[in-house]
Every structure is written in C-alpha cells, then in structure tokens.
C-alpha cells in the first residue's frame, strides 16, 4: 500500500477496532448476535409448524426473519459509531480528528458485516437443524447478492439513524431500535407486498429490501413480483446510500453550527 492508502485505511480501521473492542466487552453483543436472532427464527419457525404451512410459505417467512435479523445487527454497528460516543458524552473527540464521514461509515459498516455474517451462520444452522431449511439452495452468486443487498439496506438505515442522532441527540436513540420495525411492516418481511393496499405498496416499492427479498425468494418457487429485481434493488440502494450519506454530512454541519457536538460532550 502507498503511504496515502495506508493512512486512509488506518482511519477506517479505527472504527472497526472501536466497535470490535466494545462488542467484545459488552454483554449486549450476546443478545444482539445470538439471543434475539435465535428467538426470532425459533418463534417464527415454530409458528409456521403450528399453522401447518407448506414448505414454500415456511421458506418465505424464514427468509424474511433472517433478513430482518441481519439488517438489525449490521445497522446497529453503523449507529454505534455515533451512539457509543453519545452515551460516553465524548463525541467531540471523534470529530476533532482529521477524518471524513466515509471513514466512519465504511469502518463501522465492515464491523457490521462481520457481525451480520455471524448471525447468518447461526441462523442458517438453526434453519437447517430445526426446520430442514436450506439457505444455500439458491447457490453462491444469489446468496452473495442477497447478503450484499441486506448489508446495503443496513448501512442506509444506520446512516439514517446517525443523522437523526446528530440532529436530535439521544432523543433519537429510539430510532436505532425501531427503524427496522418500520421496514418490517413495509418491505413485506412476512407477507408478499402484493397484499398491501396500493398506496402502501408504492412505498414498499421504494424500499430496496423489497427487491432483494423478491429476488431471493424467486429461487424458492415464488413468482417474482418485480422484473429485474436485483438490478432495481442495487440501483435504489445506491440512490438511498447517496441520500443518507449527504444527509449525515448536512446534519454534521448543522451540529457544528448549533453547538450540538459540545452539548453532547458534557
């Protein structure tokens, strides 16, 4: 690596290292990576048994649960880039450093991907063991595209949460835990978006996750609702990524004008 590249990577690595150390010492990590995802898949999986669902509908629902668990844990890491500092009342130090927001976003996202993959491994094992469900059935390319889609959705949500935190301080903390529930309702985690009333369906069509779920479920025998779903998924993701990244930058400027960074550090 050239000197400049090495320096830039070092700045990114600061965010990976920070989240890694915090995760290692935080009892909530066990809940985030193991407990809640396990509870989610087991309760939903058992529900499908109780309702006597066909293997196809079971697949449909388990894919939704997996997606939700992975997005939640990955977006939390991005949100933690700001949230931990706010809890510690020391956020100003991070923004005194010569970093760009992309260092923050990329570093914490990479850590989120790591934790997301751990959740995937756990749930894929549980799904196989408990319900005979094979997450690898669609093949490596489709699986990688699906996971990448989930991680993109996660970073978009995470950056959105960071934006709200910078604008409203810890009053916005609740968004870190509830943003994903809104997606759950709108993106058709547990039901096809075709069930939604037309205006809401239009909102669903604006959420990238909808397309990634559609594309992945097609491999389990569900007729796709959208044409070129993956392409639309990535295209909308990039648009939202650009928007939330821009919003975060604007929120930081706003915070520098308002003195929020100081108020949140005392």
């Amino acid at each position, binding site marked *: 690596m050239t000197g400049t590249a090495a*320096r830039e990577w070092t700045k990114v690595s600061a965010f990976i290292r920070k989240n890694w150390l915090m995760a290692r010492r935080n009892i909530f990590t066990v809940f985030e990576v193991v407990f809640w995802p396990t509870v989610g898949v087991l309760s939903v999986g058992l529900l499908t048994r109780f309702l006597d669902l066909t293997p196809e509908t079971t697949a449909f629902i388990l894919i939704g649960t997996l997606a939700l668990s992975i997005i939640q844990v990955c977006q939390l890491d991005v949100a933690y880039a700001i949230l931990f500092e706010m809890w510690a009342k020391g956020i100003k130090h991070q923004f005194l450093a010569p970093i760009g927001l992309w260092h923050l976003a990329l570093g914490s996202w990479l850590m989120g991907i790591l934790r997301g993959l751990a959740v995937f491994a756990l749930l894929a094992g549980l799904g196989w063991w408990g319900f005979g469900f094979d997450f690898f059935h669609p093949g490596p390319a489709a699986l990688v595209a699906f996971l990448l889609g989930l991680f993109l959705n996660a970073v978009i949500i995470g950056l959105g949460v960071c934006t709200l935190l910078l604008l409203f301080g810890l009053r916005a903390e609740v968004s870190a835990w509830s943003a994903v529930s809104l997606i759950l309702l709108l993106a058709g985690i547990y039901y096809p978006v075709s069930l939604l009333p037309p205006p809401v369906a239009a909102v669903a069509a604006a959420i990238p996750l909808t397309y990634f779920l559609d594309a992945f479920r097609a491999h389990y025998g569900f007729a796709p609702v959208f044409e070129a779903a993956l392409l639309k998924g990535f295209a909308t993701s990039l648009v939202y990524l650009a928007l939330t990244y821009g919003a975060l930058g604007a929120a930081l400027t706003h915070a*520098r004008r308002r*003195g929020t960074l100081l108020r949140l550090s005392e």
Partner: protein
Amino acid sequence: MGLSPAVEIHDLEKSFRSGWPRRRVQPALRGVTFSVPRGVIFAILGPNGAGKTTLLSILATLLLPDRGSARVLGHDVVREPHRVRERVNMSSGNANFLWSLTPREILDIFARLAGVTGRVRRVRVEALLDLLELRGHAEVPYSELSTGLKQRLALAKALVNEPELLILDEPTVGLDPDVSVRIRAQIAALRRERGTTILLSTHYMREAEELADEIVFLRDGRILARGDADSLKRRIKVGDAVSLVLADPAAWERLRALPGVLACASRDGRVECVVDDARKRLPDLLRHLHEAGVEVHDLRVTEPDLEAVFLELAR
C-alpha cells in the same frame, strides 16, 4: 516565506440559537480579535460563560462561527477544516471516552483516526503512556480511572497527531492542587521540549500567570485586556489582596508609597491593599507599620479573585 501565526482571529462572533417554536439567542462571542505567535503559551482567562470554550471550539473546528474570520496555522477554519484538524488537537478538562476501553486502546484508536500507521503508531502510543505517566494504568478500563488520570489521558490523546498547536480547555479543572501542578509542569515541558504552541483557557489567575507568556481577559464574549502577566497586573491592579485592621486607620495612606503596593484603600474600618506578590511584600509592609508604631489587629491575605479583576477592568 515567513511562518503564519499559530492563530489569527478577526472580529469573531458566535451566538447559539436554541428552542422551538420560540427561539432563544444566546450571544457567546461578540467580536473577538487577536493573534497568537508560534511557540508561545497563550492563556484565555475568564469567568464562567465568558465564551472561552466557544472560542477554542471554533479554532478546533468543532463549531462554525457566525461572522468574522479565524485562521489556524495559516488555514481558514471554515474553508479548510480538514487541514486544521491534521495539525491541531484539543483536549478539555471535562473530556470523556468510551467507558470500557483502556488508556492504551483509547490512544491507539485516536492515533488511527489521525492516520498514524503501523509501527509508528505502536511506538507513539507507548511513548505517550510514559510521557503522561499512564503506564501503570494502561490496562484499566476508562470508567475506573481517577479524575487526574482521566485528565492526563485527555492530554495524551491530544498529542497523538503531534500537533503544532495544542488547544487545552481548562486542563486542570476539578483537580487536586498537587495533580494540577503535575499537569502544568507537563504543559510547560511540551512547549519547552517540542516547541508546541499552546492555547489554553482557565479561570485560575495563578495558572495563567505561571504558564502563559501572554494572557487575554475574556468576559461576556469580549476581550477586556491583553498582555503578559506582569504588565496586566500593574495595569489593572490585580495581585494578592492584603486586608488589615489597624489601630490607627489613618496610617493606610503611608502604605501606598511602598514598593510593590499597587493600590490601597480604606473601607468599613479595614484597609484593603493590593500587592503584586504577598510573599515578597508582606515582611516590608509589616516592618513599616511596626516602625511607625501602628498596631496590626488583624491580617488576611487572599489570592486575587477573577470577578474582582473584571470589576476593575469593566470600570
């Protein structure tokens, strides 16, 4: 090419807006102008709410000013904040870091944020642990450190990028006197050994006097006076206050003429004098009174308090 000053600010203004729907506007800086040459220790002295933190935060790019200009090491803080952040660092008395990380980890993370790579980073982190005498506590979680250790860690953190300008916001606030003395010695050593320009705020007159080559008095967002400690003391008659009760109250007139006595007045039966240094002048003063046959019934010596200084200045 001559070096630009460490800090150059001109007519700087900043107000805080808060509240909704009814807006409150709180002015914090009302047109501040000064410059700091390189290699000096420069103190901003002022009471609570004077605007010290606001001023320092603008220079550290944590805050955007409303009006006026501020250049740090030749870079405009609004237009080139990234350049400023590379060459400056800031620490404050009330710094906080992530509760479960250890000093070594905290310094490592901030060195990474500054873009310090590989071996250089490891060596620098260890050197800082030694410099600020943190080695014995390098593995203790931040939440378990004492206030003095936290303050030293904050200072160490501010050195990870080897800044040319170090900004310290009340570096000894809330510390025991002996801990404060150590921190001050470390600040003085930084300038002496590394040539770092240091801009610090404090509300302790003594601290400014002991450390700084130059002092500005800030109150209500305005600079009231500026100069080195001695000239300021002479000009604004700030020194130790000696308060006496004399058997012959009229004797106070004579004290005025003694060397080192900056001011004297009689109020409510007490004689209040201001001397530049009580330890040096008190023996003379007492000898003089003794020789004149004036009995001293009561004597009190107090350090100058900042409010009094400002009252003096505001006249």
